[in-house]
């Protein structure tokens, strides 16, 4: 997804998830992108597509510049269709999920 802007990234993710895929995004989505993804997901929900399951992990440490700019980096985002992935436990560093085939 290198080279895609936020809108393109969200459209790509949503299309893949609606096709039943589970994505692991190494660089994650920013909080603003997460909110946009939730907004876009809400517009797609119908009787067949009930939404997404998403888990994002933030960087614990921020650089001085990132603090100044109010940015917090995301180290990983997992996103998939809500009827295929269900988070059963999560804390700061661990995610346990059940994935249906």
């Amino acid at each position, binding site marked *: 997804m290198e080279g895609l802007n936020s809108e393109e990234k969200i459209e790509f993710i949503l299309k893949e998830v609606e096709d039943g895929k589970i994505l692991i995004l190494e660089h994650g989505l920013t909080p*603003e992108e997460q*909110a946009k993804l939730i907004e876009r997901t809400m517009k797609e929900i119908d009787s067949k597509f009930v*939404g997404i399951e998403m888990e*994002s992990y933030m960087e614990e440490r921020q650089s001085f510049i990132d603090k*100044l*700019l*109010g*940015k917090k980096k995301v180290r990983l985002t997992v996103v998939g269709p809500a009827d295929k992935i269900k988070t059963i436990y*999560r804390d700061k560093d661990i995610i346990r999920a059940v994935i249906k085939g």
Partner: protein
Amino acid sequence: MGLLNRLSAWLLSIFGKKHVRIGIYGPPNAGKTTLANRIAQDWGGGTVGEVSEVPHETRKVQKKGNVVIKNDKASLVIDIVDTPGIATKIDFHEFMEYGMDEEEAKRRAKEATEGVIEAIKWLDNIDGVILLMDSTKNPFTQVNITILGNLEARGLPVIIAANKIDLDGSTPATLKSAFPQHEVIPISALTGANIDLLYEAMVRKFGKKK
């Protein structure tokens, strides 16, 4: 955007603001409307919205203006903005478990999706947030993480209210250790327990000392 918001928040912290719009955010069934009603009744009279055990009871943003909160040293005029619960999924079948027929459940689900969108858009129209979490549940949910991340990116002041401390299984200490960088106030919006601590924090965090 981040730098401007940080600067704005910094100026606000110095010069203060007397009239602020406070959003009550959180996942569905955290008790947002119960808290909004509690604040309105304690300080202004009346209610903000209907409360129900069915998730997504609040599907449109509800407001109550000019609520004056005071303590011995300061006062704060707020507009309370009670927002629909934010979720990443909405399945109409869940509403049918509460006795609704399919048509009604689908209509409610559609309204709930619109409510989530409206709640997110309102993040651009508020001055501060009470993020309400259910202290009987795991706080590391995506909704909590996403809301907090957006508040931090916008430089908006936030108080986390650990609600439902009147229930068995409530562990507000878990919320405090989960979000050590934020002020966490354990409350029961239903019984009013510790609500005075929340009002103190609101005047301190969102308001201006006289």
